[in-house]
């Protein structure tokens, strides 16, 4: 007689092919579950899925918006993969993004009446520094005091948001803004150049693609990338090999912070053009889903960022054309993550029914 409940046993080897298919399987399962939800809500599932996933990108403007939305997600996710590959759980990218926006945006506000070619590069540089410094705080705490980086990086998100609050309500407030909480607009040369007239997709996309390419090179071709991977798989092996774990933690956090900082700066100097409180719709947190959906691989992350960006856009079209609440978009994001984790479990573990007698 077999026991009623299966027990979970580790597989000796996980299938490489299945590893590749995990994201695709989870997206397909999400679509199926989504259709069931739509049917239960009383909608034609084909029309609903069309409204959700096709209609938002059926125009040039829609495709441009998809890239606008995917740019910060991809950039932060590729940064996060430096940490996650090394089993460092930095979930504070939102704070690092905010700090990047503050540092870079601060330069933009300081030079609000200057038009010069060096302004934007300086802002991008400052954004990277801001994000990296903010990322280094949990790195120092982890290496010096052995604190849990999940907690410290998360809590620093709120600190960063409060600093931004303070700045736009206080010292950086627009003197001509009726004391509303927002800064002066940046000068024209402090804005990300648009790639096409009339569309919002901006130079941040080029920066992102460039950094993704660099990251691919680092992961695949350099010793540093190899060290990240080894110490993630087996910290002990890494130590025997003489890799310095402290240095790795510092680099991973600094790079991730810098990427998130550039993403924040690209957002405020791209579509926004000034600083205010609500600069990011939680890009830093959503990028965690993107990083895992993309299997921490540069190409995977590009596709994953487009898929997740589409769930945001789709939620708006679904509201407009189907009168479905905006929360449906988050349901899709949640489903993707749920199936991803579930499939991952089944690839690395198997269920067995023990014999009781």
């Amino acid at each position, binding site marked *: 007689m077999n026991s009623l409940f299966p027990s979970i046993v580790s597989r000796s080897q996980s299938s490489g092919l299945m590893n590749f298919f995990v994201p695709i399987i989870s997206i397909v399962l999400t679509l199926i579950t989504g259709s069931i939800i739509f049917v239960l809500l009383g909608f034609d599932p084909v029309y609903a899925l069309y409204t959700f996933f096709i209609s938002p990108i059926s*125009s040039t403007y829609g495709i441009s918006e998809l890239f606008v939305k995917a740019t910060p997600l991809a950039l932060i996710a590729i940064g996060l993969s430096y940490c996650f590959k090394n089993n460092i759980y930095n979930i504070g990218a939102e704070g690092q993004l905010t700090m990047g926006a503050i540092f870079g945006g601060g330069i933009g506000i300081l030079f609000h009446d200057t038009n010069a070619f060096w302004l934007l590069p300086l802002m991008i540089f400052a954004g990277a520094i801001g994000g990296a410094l903010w990322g280094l705080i949990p790195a120092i705490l982890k290496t010096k005091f052995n604190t849990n980086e999940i907690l410290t990086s998360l809590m620093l998100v709120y600190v960063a948001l409060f600093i931004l609050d303070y700045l736009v309500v206080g010292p950086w407030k627009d003197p001509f803004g009726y004391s*509303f909480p927002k800064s002066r607009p940046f000068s024209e040369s402090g804005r990300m150049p648009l790639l096409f007239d009339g569309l919002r997709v901006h130079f941040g996309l080029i920066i992102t693609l460039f950094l993704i390419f660099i990251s691919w090179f680092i992961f695949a071709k350099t010793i540093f990338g190899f060290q990240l991977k080894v110490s993630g798989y087996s910290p002990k092996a890494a130590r025997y090999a003489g890799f310095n774990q402290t240095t790795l933690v510092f680099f991973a956090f600094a790079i991730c912070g810098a990427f998130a900082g550039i993403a924040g700066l690209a957002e405020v100097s791209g579509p926004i053009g000034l600083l205010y409180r609500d600069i990011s719709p939680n890009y830093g947190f959503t990028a965690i889903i993107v990083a895992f959906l993309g299997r921490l691989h540069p190409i995977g992350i590009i596709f994953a960022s487009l898929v997740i960006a589409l769930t945001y856009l789709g939620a708006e079209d679904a509201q*407009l054309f189907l009168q479905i609440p905006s929360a449906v978009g988050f349901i899709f994001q949640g489903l993707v993550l749920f199936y991803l984790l579930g499939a991952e479990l089944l690839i690395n573990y198997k269920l067995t029914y023990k014999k009781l007698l």
Partner: protein
Amino acid sequence: MIRIITFLSTFLVFAFGSAYADPKKVGFIYIGPPGDHGWTYMHDVGRKYMESQLGDSITTTYLENIPENADAVRAIRKLADSGHDLIFTTSFNYMDQTHEVAKDFPDIKFEHATGYIQADNVATYSARFYEGRMIEGHIAGHMTETNTIGYIASFPIPEVVRGINAFYLAASKVNPDIKMKIIWVFTWYDPGKEADAANTLINQGADIIVQHTDTYAPCQAAQKAGVYAFGQASNQEEFCPDAHLTSIEDIWGPYYAERAKAVVDGTWSSGDTWDGMDKGMVVMSPYNTKLMPASLIQEAVNMEVGIKDGTIHPFTGPIYNQAGELVVPEGEVAPDGMLLGMNFYVQGIDGEVPQ
């Protein structure tokens, strides 16, 4: 035969096409969900009122939970792209985004709530909520026993500071010992934070809670603690019947119907509307007869009458700022320009406006 039918149907379309014109599409951008029972809820009530008034000549849609960042541009543009003729953006921080989209769609009319910048196709509108604050202040001055008022404020923008001042001026007039404790929560919509702020204020001795945020959480906290509260945006009595004295209700329906009708008739023009109790845009919820003495209710009603006919103005001089300088001389009322940019406390309020 087919040709005749084709001809006839073409003729019919042209002949009656103008009389039975396509309904105008009116879209709304909401900061929160319509179920917040506060700010967004009242805009949605206004939208439904507009529908009921204009019937088949309009259709309406809305996008909810639109963040006040770069996403708002896409949401507004989505309404513009999908053939809407009139678009209401119902939060202050949609200002730049509204103008960004409006300049690309000169034929579409936009209405931006609580903003201060107009364009040929962008009108602004707001309500003189501070008139209601004056009545709340008067009531609070009479009802408090600890002489301590707890005030939950959202952002230090003129609208909120104006409300605090209007409240205090009226309250201190009937009760010179009154003290205001103000907590800035820096959010419009966060039930948890709002309730925390209310509890903190109650622990500090406040026996009346005033809020300039969007949920009924503060009123419920007051009910639990056994103190009084004023609701915000909609009548919140059902959520806290033993605490609720009255609410300031935002009544947008008639304005929305008027503006939509203007679009249907082709008479819409840009402008800035700032209406108050006289036009019915600000309304006090029924005063709580269980908690308030009849004489006080009568005073409040009289005040409403005075505000409506212009004999009472919440900002009548002499008014001093915290430094003791006279800002509104005796016998004069504060001009709208001063009210629109108000970023200082009047004399008697402790603390500073967060700068």
